[in-house]
């Protein structure tokens, strides 16, 4: 690590964040920041977004108290049901926000990167609603692994561009989107899919996702008369986690737990546990933690869930970890799969593999201390329909159970 502290510039979360992009992208990022700040304060923007969130996407989402998942423990577990949002995951919240912003900034074309395809599907879906030309960059490997989502994006009228460069996965799709944008920024908005990338994206995405935590906070106070002891969420780039964490940041009694992809185990080298095993680095416009080798080449991550398969992480998470405000642990592939099946069998809810990691970590802690009374909320960030083929192959093709 370098000994000299990097000079704080704009968009810093402690020593993380910033705007590490080619100079040509600085003016469009500055314009985006100005546009965001201007429209955020505009009551008509807020009103239109609230209307879309409510009448198009189905907010507020329910907060469901589980009945059987943690039976035998004294943990009271609530699930924030982002799986019931239109589109099937929390992605819809911030895509609506950014799309409306891009629309008001006069952009006719929208580009996005996607890994599993969930963000790409959300952009294609809402791009159709706004009549935008949508181009989604997706690693060639992911296109093959997630063929149904490629088809969904095409149904919504988007063009999906398979990316063959580098490792042909999410990070390379993000590289390609940045390349496109450095040529097209005048009429194009780059709709980044998570709380990562150059300033102001981490802030914009967090801002449009914080509705998850705001709703949770109000409802848990109403129903339990107090704040939760623990709020947990899975972390890939980290948008659903910051979405639910933000409303609780100012309440130190609320512990925050981020759960990363432990893959085949942290010692195996095949995981996506950036916060536990990464080192500070610079990628995709931000200084954050990164999975990288000793000379700084970025490494490939691994996870059973494509949505957690990213070698970087949002800079605010790196900061929350550094300050101790949030705690980060990993759940391995087999633990997530077990949690998915357990939730399906005990609650009749099929979670996506991503939030199944958070469920696994919470269940692990609850069962380790069954007598401990705790009020816990897990952000159930998406539903598992997209994972059916994968899970079926794992379970019935001689998988881990």
């Amino acid at each position, binding site marked *: 690590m*370098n000994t*000299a502290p990097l000079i704080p510039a704009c968009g810093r979360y402690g020593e993380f964040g910033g705007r590490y992009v080619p100079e040509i992208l600085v*003016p469009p990022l500055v314009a985006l920041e100005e546009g965001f700040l201007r429209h955020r304060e505009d009551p008509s923007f807020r009103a239109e977004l609230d209307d879309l969130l409510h009448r198009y996407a189905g907010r507020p989402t329910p907060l469901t108290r589980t009945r059987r998942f943690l039976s035998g423990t004294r943990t009271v577990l609530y699930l924030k049901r982002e799986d019931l949002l239109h589109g099937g995951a929390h992605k819809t919240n911030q895509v609506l926000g950014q799309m409306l912003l891009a629309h008001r900034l006069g952009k006719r074309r929208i580009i996005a990167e996607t890994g599993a395809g969930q963000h790409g599907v959300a952009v294609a879906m809402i791009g159709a609603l706004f009549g935008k030309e949508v181009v989604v960059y997706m690693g060639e490997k992911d296109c093959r692994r997630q063929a149904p989502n490629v088809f969904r994006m095409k149904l919504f009228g988007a063009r999906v561009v398979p990316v063959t460069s580098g490792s042909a996965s999410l990070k390379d799709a993000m590289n390609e989107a*940045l390349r496109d944008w450095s040529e097209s920024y005048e009429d194009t908005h780059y709709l980044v899919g998570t709380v990562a990338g150059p300033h102001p994206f981490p802030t914009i995405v967090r801002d449009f996702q914080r509705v998850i935590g705001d709703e949770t906070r109000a409802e848990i106070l109403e129903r339990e008369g107090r704040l939760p002891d623990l709020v947990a969420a899975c972390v890939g780039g980290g948008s659903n986690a910051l979405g639910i964490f933000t409303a609780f940041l100012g309440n130190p009694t609320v512990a925050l737990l981020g759960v990363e992809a432990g893959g085949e185990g942290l010692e195996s080298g095949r995981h996506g546990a950036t916060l536990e095993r990464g080192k*500070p680095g610079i990628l995709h416009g931000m200084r954050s933690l990164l999975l990288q080798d000793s*000379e*700084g*080449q970025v490494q490939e991550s691994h996870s059973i869930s494509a949505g957690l398969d990213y070698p970087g992480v949002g800079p605010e998470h790196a900061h929350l970890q550094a300050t101790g405000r949030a705690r980060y642990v990993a759940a391995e592939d087999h633990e997530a799969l077990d949690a998915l099946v357990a939730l399906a069998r005990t609650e009749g809810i099929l979670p996506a593999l991503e939030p199944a990691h958070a469920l696994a970590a919470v269940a692990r802690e609850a069962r380790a201390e069954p007598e401990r009374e705790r009020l816990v909320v897990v952000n159930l960030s998406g539903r598992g329909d997209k994972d059916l083929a994968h899970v079926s192959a794992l379970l019935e093709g001689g998988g881990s159970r």
Partner: protein
Amino acid sequence: MSGRFTQLFHRLENERRGALVPFAVLGDPNPEESLRRLAVLADHADALEVGLPFSDPIADGPTVQAAVLRARAAGTTVERGLGLVAALRRMHPDLPIGLLVYANLVHARGLERFYAAASQAGLDAVLVPDVPLEEAAPFARAARAAGVAPVLIAPPNAPDATLAGIARTGGEYTYVVTRKGITGVGRGELDPSQSLIERLERFEAPPALLGFGIACAEHVRHSLKSGARGVIVGSALIERFTKEPDSVPQYLDELRAATTLPPR
């Protein structure tokens, strides 16, 4: 600091010529062949810009990306890349050599240590394409401390305040981008950037080398007419090395012939 680039620009001004600066990815297609190619380039050009292969080259188009993949597949580490520069430096003590390196490779080693290694390898200048002016201060400071000039990129959409900052911060040369987008040939209209170069001169920025998309003698003449002090030729050259390696010396000589400026 009067480095090798500065001396070159003085000399070329007397000769009424612009500088021809080829770009190559260190270790492409493998370290041994790369060194042979660098030697050819050095013999037919005025200065060199070389790039360290990085896993995520976001400012580069398909040609440079492919070169980076070849170099990495052939085992070109940062250490080996800098070793190639050192070997080239031993052969050409007076050749101006600039390095292009993505931020994470500098950051991972530590800024002071990286620039010290760059200096030791014999580099005159270092350009970090994903560090814009507003993040450049610690990089520029570490570069100067090691006796290496920090080079910044001036794109066509930069406001005056940015160009003024580039003029204050940069050394040896300014990498002027002729158009939007990424490196590569035929990706869009070449913008002669005359006004951009005039603005840079007004702020007394280091001499402008024009890059992105320059492929033929006509481009070279066009660029120099706009006031640039030289041109950087990357993707077109890499493609030629791949397709017709034997024609490279002649190609460079043609480009170099086009660097002659009209008499004052």
